[in-house]
């Protein structure tokens, strides 16, 4: 077992799945020769050749669209969108097609496709390189949305995503790519999609987060008796784990780095308001970015929720 970064863990997952299953192919911009702009696919071209590590032209809709055709034909494509800010051009292929191929054909054709993309803020990158609009994709039945929060979960979830019989959007928190190392087994393991992870147990408040925010949440909760839930899969999300925790603590704080209005925190809060309200002692609070688009680097720390903001919100809900 080795201490790996998230980039290495994802690379390992791809490598192992490609070894295991010749249906797995990777396509995207600069994924081959260059090994990806974050080096996530480094060394895979050398190992698997240009037929399985496909450098495509600069065309996001075609990357996802072609991957749909490949998936329907029987392959297991893993498409990379270079940054989440460029996935919008592929939304039509994702929503009108990937999500619906199985239902449109009443099960005759399926779409076992993974779309990977770096996402989230905090890396001081140019415009559109730090989007965190995961909520868009959580309102489309037929697509799963998965967000790892570290190297270990990245490998286990990506392996599960590649083996999943349906399309999965796999969002990789860019800020975490090299921020930490974790023990990541060489062995084949998967983490089940749709299952949250209780990272820390407590009884006073439930704090729910995913991806790049989890690290900040874990810093913020140190002085509190908090249950911390790492959602891992956003769609379908693990309502049972969330509700069990809220029933125990009676208080909920949801943290995400996307703009507040319409963010995925809304769905979690709504679910709690619908199914857990009788156990609540106070409001369900959301810590989120303000309702503006991601600014350029000089402003990004004013935008992203910080530890202090999380602490303040926990304090607020503890007043009830």
């Amino acid at each position, binding site marked *: 077992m080795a201490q790996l970064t998230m980039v290495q863990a994802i690379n390992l997952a791809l490598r192992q799945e490609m070894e295991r299953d010749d249906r797995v192919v990777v396509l995207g911009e600069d994924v081959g020769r260059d090994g990806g702009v974050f080096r996530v696919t480094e060394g895979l071209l050398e190992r698997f050749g240009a037929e399985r590590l496909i450098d495509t032209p600069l065309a996001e809709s*075609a990357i996802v669209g072609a991957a749909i055709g490949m998936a*329907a034909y*029987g392959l297991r494509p893993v498409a990379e969108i270079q940054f989440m800010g460029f996935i919008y051009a592929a939304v*039509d292929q994702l929503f*009108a097609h990937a999500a619906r191929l199985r239902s449109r*054909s009443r099960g005759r054709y399926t779409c076992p496709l993974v779309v990977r993309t770096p996402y989230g803020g905090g890396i001081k990158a140019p415009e559109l390189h730090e989007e965190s609009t995961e909520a868009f994709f959580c309102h489309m*039945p037929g697509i799963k949305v998965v967000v790892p929060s570290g190297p270990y979960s990245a490998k286990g979830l990506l392996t599960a995503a590649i083996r999943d019989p349906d399309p999965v959007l796999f969002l990789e928190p860019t800020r975490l790519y090299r921020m930490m190392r974790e023990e990541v087994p060489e062995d084949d393991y998967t983490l089940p999609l*749709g299952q949250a992870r209780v990272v820390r147990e407590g009884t006073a408040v439930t704090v729910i987060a995913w991806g790049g925010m989890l690290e900040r949440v874990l810093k913020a909760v140190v002085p509190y008796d908090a249950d911390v839930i790492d959602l891992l899969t956003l769609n379908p999300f693990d309502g049972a784990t969330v509700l069990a925790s809220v029933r125990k603590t009676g208080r909920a704080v949801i943290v995400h780095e996307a703009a507040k209005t319409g963010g995925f925190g809304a769905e979690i809060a709504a679910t709690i308001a619908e199914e857990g309200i009788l156990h609540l002692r106070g409001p369900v609070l959301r810590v989120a970015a303000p309702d503006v688009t991601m600014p350029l680097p000089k402003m990004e720390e004013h935008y992203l929720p910080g530890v202090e903001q999380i602490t303040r919100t926990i304090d607020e809900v503890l007043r009830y």
Partner: protein
Amino acid sequence: MPEEVLATFTVRRLSILNESGDADEGLMPPLSDAEIRRMHELMVLARTFDERALTLQREGRLGTYPPILGQEAAQVGSALALHPADWVFPSFREMGVHLTLGYPIHLLFQYWAGDGRGLRTPENLTIFPICVSVGTHIPHAVGAAMAARYRRDPVAVCCFFGDGATSKGDFHEGFNLAGVFRLPVVFICQNNQWAISVPLQRQTAAATLAQKAVAYGFEGVQVDGNDVFAVHRAAREALDKARSGGGPTFIECLTYRMADHTTADDAARYRPQEEVETWRGRDPILRLERFMTQRGLWSEEYARETKEAATKAVDEGVRTMEASPPPAPEELFDHTGATLTPRQAAQRKEP
């Protein structure tokens, strides 16, 4: 500007069978009499299906329906060039392709009646579900071609769409990918000269659609889309080329949408009746019948039998479609994913 010439491109047009039914024997594809009759029978079946669909729609037994009248040669001629293992990516106005390939008639009707179960392609066929969103299936065809090549499968992929589709970004991205990877794919555009109310000259300033292939570094050709022999020959050559590693081809079938865009449309609002009349004279079935008459392949009796057989098949399709019970409410949940999400499972149980 006086400059160095880097490259020259030509766009060609293939036509074999003229309106009087005379064929250029030098260009004729190799077809036996039986095959020619089969072509004709399928075109008659396509037209019969289409006529019935319009009737059923008027009677409220089908939903909105896009007629194929006038495009039978483009559809049957090209589909007859396909091999059973080839993959087909239709748009929404290729019922002649479906019928030629043996897609069950009752399923076609079922789909146009608004019942999604009609889109489950039988296991023996590799036809993708009808694509309503114009042009967006082109990348799928390209991806399937990538997969076929990766698998070393000796198949071609064939993708159908209309003139309007050539304006979509996905047309471009898909074509470009096909060119870069020299994929085994044949793109067949039925240029019926209208995209609802938008005529070809407002769809593009290009004089032909075929020339759009120049942008992607592969061959584009225009064929007389009402000439079943020209369509068939071009499709056959392009599919053979694709299967043998020669890369993609773009075939523009110049034809005409004789009917309204769909049963929800009234073409009289936007196009002159004279234009329609001009094209009526170019009817693809009439033309083939003239040829068959010259060849001695046509007789009153043959014609009657052909029409009867088509009518019978269509009647049966309607009967089977209408005999199938309506979908059960729970079927809503059947194919969103391989398994139900917990929330879907709960919703499925709700009253």
